[in-house]
């Protein structure tokens, strides 16, 4: 197990001999591999994107440039799906069943199945900064299946938001994988943030959770694209929950939100229906428009995170910044948009 000379300490690192900048891995090379849909580049991509070391940040930017819409000649092909919901709603069992169906169904029919990357965001950070990432254990998959990639990350130090690395990773992995799932915990704030990254947002609730109805009606909760009610095996309760939720959505005039009832315990039920609902939603939206809006929102939030209110004032306020972003080339990635804002602030 002794590390060969020049090999990094972390797994999946590129040999540092191949890197161009201060022994950081070669971000552009990793990005190119993702663009060529080399799934084995995923661990190295995540290791790099999570690093805040200055050399690594430059390489991260290089990686992201390689998978930017401009480099891809359009939007990344992967479908980014946000799955969020309160603890105990059955997200992990649901994800196991989904994974199985995505990988297996087509496989059985002689096809390849869809490749899946999952980013599990764990909220359990402590004051020590450390966290316990145990979620992947609950998602069953064949460990030798190279078409599956699961990475758990702590929510990070950026209060109330998805870690920058998670957003960047979702974009990057969408270049290589057919499906990218971002799993987060919570109801209320969480799905708003996921909505800034995901093409489709699913909220998972268990039967009888009346608070979700309250959140929907009061507007605390952003309206999901798909509402999943788990534990259909509970029978009557699940059926009446679905009725209540559907009625609430109709009363809000939101008939476009699909409601699916699933059971993840054997025999699983509703999983194919849910996958169909994801696909129908993706087909129904203007993907380029949704992602462009997300990139601009992310760029502004990254800029503010970096430069604060003073930075925003240097641009002439939020509306001016938004106008500026709207004038940029649509295929620019988030980092390029942030750079554009920074240049404008410096010029101003």
């Amino acid at each position, binding site marked *: *197990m*002794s*590390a*060969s*000379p*020049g*090999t*990094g*300490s*972390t*797994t*999946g*690192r590129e040999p*540092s*001999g191949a890197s161009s900048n*201060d*022994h950081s891995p070669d971000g552009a090379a990793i990005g190119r591999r993702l663009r060529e849909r080399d799934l084995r580049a*995923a*661990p190295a991509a*995540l*290791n790099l994107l*999570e*690093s*805040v*070391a*200055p*050399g*690594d940040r430059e390489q991260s930017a290089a990686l992201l440039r390689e998978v930017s819409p401009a480099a891809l000649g359009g939007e990344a092909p992967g479908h980014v799906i946000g799955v969020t919901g309160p603890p105990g709603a059955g997200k992990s069992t649901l994800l196991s069943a989904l994974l199985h169906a995505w990988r297996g169904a087509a496989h059985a029919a002689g096809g390849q199945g869809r490749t899946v990357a999952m980013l599990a965001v764990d909220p*359990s950070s*402590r*004051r*020590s*900064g*450390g*966290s*316990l*990432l*145990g979620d*992947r*254990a*609950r998602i*069953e998959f064949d*460990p*030798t299946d190279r078409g599956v*990639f*699961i*990475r*758990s990350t*702590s929510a990070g130090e950026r209060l109330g938001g998805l870690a920058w690395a998670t957003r960047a990773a979702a974009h990057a992995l969408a270049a290589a994988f057919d499906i990218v799932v971002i799993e987060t915990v919570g109801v209320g704030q969480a799905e708003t943030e996921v909505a800034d990254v995901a093409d489709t947002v699913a909220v998972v609730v268990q039967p009888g959770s009346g608070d979700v109805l309250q959140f929907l009606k009061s507007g605390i909760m952003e309206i999901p694209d798909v509402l999943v009610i788990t534990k259909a095996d509970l029978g009557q309760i699940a059926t009446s929950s679905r009725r209540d939720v559907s009625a609430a959505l109709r009363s809000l005039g939101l008939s476009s939100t699909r409601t699916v009832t699933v059971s993840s*315990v*054997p025999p699983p039920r509703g999983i194919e229906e849910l996958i169909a609902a994801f696909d129908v939603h993706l087909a129904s939206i203007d993907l380029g428009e949704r992602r462009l809006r997300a990139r601009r929102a992310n760029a502004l939030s990254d800029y503010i995170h970096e430069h604060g209110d003073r930075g925003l004032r240097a641009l002439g306020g939020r509306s001016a910044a938004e106008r500026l972003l709207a004038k940029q080339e649509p295929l620019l990635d988030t980092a390029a948009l942030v750079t554009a804002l920074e240049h404008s602030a410096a010029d101003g």
Partner: protein
Amino acid sequence: MMRTYAGHSTAKASNELYRGNLAKGQTGLSVAFDLPTQTGYDPDDELARGEVGKVGVPVVHRGDMATLMDGIPLGEMNTSMTINATAAWLLALYIVAAEEQGVPEEELQGTTQNDIIKEFLARGTYAFPPAPSMRLIADMIAYTVEHVPKWNPINICSYHLQEAGATPVQEIAYAMSNAIAVLDAARERVEEAHAGEEAAARELMGQVFGRISFFVNAGVRFVEEHAKLRAMGILWEELGRERYGVTDPKHLRFRYGVQVNSLGLTEAQPENNVQRIVLETLAVTLGRDARARAIQLPAWNEALGLPRPWDQQWSLRIQQVMAYETDLLEYPDIFEGSVVMDGLVAELLDGARAEMAVVAEHGGAVEAVPYMKGALVDSHRQRIHRIESGEQVVVGQNRFAETAVSPLTDDAEGGILVVDPAIEAEQIEAVRRWRSERDQGAVDAALSDLARAAAGEDDPARPQENLMIPTIAAARAGATTGEWARTLREVFGSYRAPTGVGEASGHETPDAELTELREEVSRLKERLGRRPKILVGKPGLDGHSNGAEQIAVRARDSGMDVVYEGIRLTPAQIAASALQEGVHVIGLSILSGSHRELIPAVIKALHEAGVTAPVVVGGIIPDQDVAALQQAGVAAVYTPKDFDITRIMHDIVELVGARANGRGSSTNGSPPGA
């Protein structure tokens, strides 16, 4: 009754061991099964690798059971089986073996441990999710009360809770809550069977209550431990009268067997464990009103590895000296009227009732598994912290540690039994032969019958079938342990128990050492560019997760990102996690003695996945195995001697830091390959 917990290698070898022990004056059998048998896998399953015949005997089919009990008259024997998830299956094999000896099932005496909640909480040999597991238990109770009336279908275990760190109050409260969950499930069966016949239902419920026995632990604080047992007796009687309407004093008696504490036994100066065992035995024998029915003692060298026949003989002799040489058994209850003892009991009762109320608020023991698990991990964390700080003295370990060379551990194997690795290959061969020689059609039919009975739950119109019936039929037909369990897994789904580490609270106010460790971790984070990430893995079927849990909690408290997925992982799963999660270091924990096979297998899988992160190993690793593990590529090995977890963390931080040198961060750029 005097027993030693025994079984290893093969059914034939264990049979010889049992006959030898019976000849030495032992009065019952206590069967230890290997982990594949306990968790429902055949010897040729990938997960069984390295575990066949290790911690007990492999019993794969009725032929193995017949060999195991060969020449032992089952009509007279009292057999205790430490078996839980697969208890229904092993009882079925035992019934079939008796049948073959011409002994009817109603004459069989003994106990199946069959306590699944403590498997989720502490011991880890579960096979099915909680709800169907409870159904199996209720089915066994219903079956044995009617057909095997002298059998104890379940032994509620508080033993393992203490091993997992439970305080006396937690041990009492969780054991009683567990009993309530079982009895409530059994009561439903009783009421179904005797709808509208209240008197008959009450009578049957009394019998069911009377068949529940306990398996408890006794630690070295033997006065308090004795008080604990008195408190349990009081609570049990109260529970019987008030919750289940039991009136017959015979049924209300708190019956328990005991294995004294293993957690407190040390690897350092292991000879001291003998006096610990003696004192712990006093806890369960001193006062007649709370005296154990059956006692089994661990061997002095348990913290080192598997005991040999001589080590077990020594434990048996301890009991014999106490029973036959001392005056221990000559008096009525010696604590009667003791104000101090009564006060201690009252204090424990108060604490236990309060904690039972918390479990009830969570919806009972089944629903409260995550809560109880978190509480146990936290108690254990505090215990370790007390030992680390010297507040709790462990002689020979954190005090009086100087020692002369021990002649007891001086032989080539280091004073333990080593199971011949060839046995696994033989057993794999044997099970394949068994499968090829049996009537496959009969097995297939029996298993599909079992599957149908198990799935019947979905149809509320049909009364639920008792799973013991198709289980016994499958045993008779020649099905294997793995086939029986796989059939039920396919119907019930598989399950991973909560790890408890997320719920366990951290160090609220870090002490100086932890603060220093956090600073080290934070400096390492600067160098790595991201938070140091550790994978804590438990390969194989070993369910003893205390060590892994405590490492995980401390790593988190020191500021690392910790990937901990619980027990029972294959080398391929560990390698996939390490690769995908991008961890900087991998910690593996094994206590079952299978490190010789499993650690190299994991390292090979990591290598094939291209993972270069260093591997450290913790567990019961005999000195003579350390060099071989290092040869295989392990960076460091930790054993129970290394009780200071903060020190282990320092080592790990240093190890990761040293590897990081090759990479060179922006501030400290040593050239690549330096």
